[in-house]
């Protein structure tokens, strides 16, 4: 997946699955949209579906520092690159 494709798919997930209204790629998801621990785990599941691959525990733990959609795009791009 290209970076643009990842970003488009993540924006779709945040709007359709998480029902966030007009998310900005630099919004702090917790502060602006109430993103919580349950959402974080659900997002990892969505990312696994997006990549068609399981994430390791270490990979999942790295996601805990992510705060914005742009940071999530970076995170997914990095995961995708290791699975090419």
């Amino acid at each position, binding site marked *: 997946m290209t970076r643009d494709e990842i970003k488009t798919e993540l924006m779709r997930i945040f709007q359709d699955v*998480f*029902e966030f209204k007009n998310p900005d790629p630099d919004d702090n998801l917790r502060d602006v949209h*109430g993103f*919580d621990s*349950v*959402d974080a*785990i*659900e997002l990892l*599941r969505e990312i696994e579906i997006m990549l068609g691959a*399981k994430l390791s525990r270490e990979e999942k733990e790295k996601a805990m520092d992510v705060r914005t959609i742009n940071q999530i795009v970076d995170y997914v791009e990095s995961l995708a690159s290791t699975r090419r």
Partner: protein
Amino acid sequence: MERRVVVTGCSAITPIGRTKEEIIRHLVDGTSGVKQLRDDGLLSDHIHSGVFGTVDYPIEYDFKRTYRKTMGPVAFYACQVAKEILEGAGLSDDFITSGRLGVSFGSTHGSPSVQRGIYRSFFSNSKSEFSSIGAVDYLKSMVHTTAVNITKMFGITGRVISSSTACTTSSQSIGLGYEMVKYGMQDAMLCGGADEYDTTTVAVFDNLLACSTAFNDAPHLTPRPFDVRRDGLVVGEGAGAVLLEEYEFAKRRGANILCEVTGFSCNNSGGDLIFPNVDAITRTIRLGLQDAKISADEVDLVSAHATATKMGDVVEAQAIYNVYGNSPLITGLKSYMGHTMGSCGAIELIIALYMMEEGFVAPTLNLDKIDERCAMIRHATGIAECDIRIAAIQNFAFGGVNTSIIIKKI
């Protein structure tokens, strides 16, 4: 310190309607909410009983995803009745989040439909299916899912009790909530129970030969509490909730006081986990009256547990007679909607309250010919105009748990 406890709000989802008007109309018309069992693609073909007390009308939930994401069907029911109560109660946001409002709410076993999905994944040979178990599936299915989804939705920070004692789940929820307020631990408690459409519960009772099977082609004719042709219980679904408040607090804030809860008892039969015990239930009823500080002849109405099992009704009738003689009117409300399991105590209390408010007693439906072993008590066999000042709601559960709640007109 003992404080007076009053009911200041109630809401129900039942097989015979949602609103007070709908429910009363069903009672007055003698219309049953029991329908044919739906094909669930799993158990329905193997179950002898083909009937279910069904909520077959749409409910428009207006819950944001942040609340929906941890709810199974049972929590949707619970949060809907809780929402209706809190929206109408007029409690301030400051009070709701103060820690002085608690929640006492339960279900028989969380969300069986979500659990079914989990087990399907567990026993799947597919690795991807096993790993697809959602992180929130536990939150949706766990035994206290109803109570904590309510606390999340409203930011309630007080005590949480989540009874899960099968048929006494919600009567215990209300009773324990009443004691929380009575003894000063909380100023208000949101109490009740819920259970969703579930054929596994039917299968359990079916295997115990406790379910009705003779009226599969005429569901409205069963269950038949106290009737000679009764052949077992009918499992149902629903939810019921009440808001309990300390009397002075409710009066000060100008709350609409619906009735007073004056007594609660809960004991165990101390032996058999299935068959009801006449001595234990007799004690339950006496302990309830003792807590309410009233004599048996002051009770105008008894809402009997009355599941329509062959022995359960005989034992209950005997226990009622032991304490009350043939003085109060006795009605079995499950005859209209089946056994709504974890919600039955709350629903039956709410309906008893409606009858208290409107001055009538609905008869036990399908009670065409009273079993002579149950005939020594005063059955309501037709609509009776009646000034109900005090009513007792009694419920009994597998495991030998028995409860009685006393409510009083105020």
